[in-house]
């Protein structure tokens, strides 16, 4: 379904200009004492939320910025940051 995203530099643009960068999983885990399971969790595992999630995007065909945004995966609409996570 069609999608419009707001790039921090270029503003509202067509979703096909962007590359999806995955669910926001927080910072990269520290390497000291990292287990294969913890690394796998960071690299591969997803929550697959049907609803609002925080995610990474890159404005591939534009300014090239990486940014996070909130999107409702059941509507494909960009949404404001939910109250609970402020």
């Amino acid at each position, binding site marked *: *379904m069609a999608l419009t995203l707001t790039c921090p530099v270029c503003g509202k643009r067509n979703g*096909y200009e962007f590359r999806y*960068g995955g669910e926001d999983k927080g910072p990269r885990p520290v390497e000291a004492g990292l287990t*294969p399971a913890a690394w796998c969790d960071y690299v*591969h595992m*997803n*929550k*697959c939320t*049907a609803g609002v999630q925080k995610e990474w995007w890159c404005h591939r065909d534009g300014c090239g910025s990486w940014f996070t945004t909130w999107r409702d995966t059941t509507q494909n609409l960009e949404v404001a940051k939910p109250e609970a996570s402020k």
Partner: protein
Amino acid sequence: MFWKSKPLWGNKTRLKSSYDAVIIGGGLHGLATAYYLAKEHGLTDVAIIEKRFIGFGGAGRNTAIVRANQRTQYNVPLYKEALDLWPVLTKELDYNLMFNNCGNLNLMHSEAAMKAARMTIATAQFHGVESHLIDAKQAKELVPALNISEDITFPIHGAMFHPPGGIVRHDAVVWGLAKGAAKHGVDIHQHTEATAIHTEGGKITGVETSRGRIHTPRVLVSAGGYSAGLIYHMLGIKLPIAVLTIQAMVTQPLKPLLDHVVSSGAYHCYANQTLKGEIATGAHMDQWPNYTTQNTAHYIKHQAEALSDWLPCLRGVKFMRIWGGLADMTPDMAPIMDGNDHYEGFYMDCGWGYFGFKSCSAVGKYMAQYMASGHCPDMLKPFNLRRYENHQLMGETAELVSYTPNN
């Protein structure tokens, strides 16, 4: 007339407070597993819990293509068995599944693609699956409508021809399996939503539904594209899955012109002619996870352009219906079938991407064996979830299918 007030799978039944096994998701994998549990393993006290109606999801949205020319030694035998089961199930279920083994033709548009096809063909032939490499002229003989000229975007170098594949009527499989399962005593509860899975001391104890609580020692989640979100939401188990909408469409009905399933990786497009004469076509996936099952103008344009390039006789033909479904993609394009790992009695069958339809018959058989005995059949062992943390991803694709920055 032909109207029957009672569906093939019996009248609506009361939701009992306890079952030997509960299957979440009334799609093809759930129905097939229930059918084999009841028929082969005597486990007849089984409930299928379906939020909407059977065949609502991927079961009724796929484009009905079946084939067994996958890439790896683990996948090919599974899909071969699935392919061999269609005629058997047609008889067993006493229901015409309309298996039309018209053969699949995978077009190759470069010498590199021909080389990759040689390897895939060698794997297929090693496992006793018929598959040949043919050149562009031979492809043209099989499908006269094909444009093999040099002046198209991706000129055709040759093709991988896989005669035993083809088309199965997907609705018939849903109804046939539901009929078969119900006949052996399985309860199919439609419009019943699973809301929680209960555990105690590392064991499954029950399922909470919108119609009340069910006590059970075994749960299978086979909810197609909804599985990963549901498993995380209910049990906190994260899966290496990205759920994407995949789009498909059919044209207006035409006179017979395509008697094979023809697909092209470079054009990102496949087409086959249904028994009604429509050209069923698809392949595009949204580039970001979503649960919308909506189509895009972007894709309709892409499909029209691709088809008019390699099947030029379709220029000017109108699309009649468009739709979308969910594909739960894993990084190695292979499914996850696992059980008794996180919780005793918890089984999952997901991550099928767009291969769920072609595999359902064989998977039902083996998942039933798994659930009845508690031991993983050899056929399913390579598909465990732990392969990701053990860095034993399958080589079904040359590189990871990842909807992440690597993509």
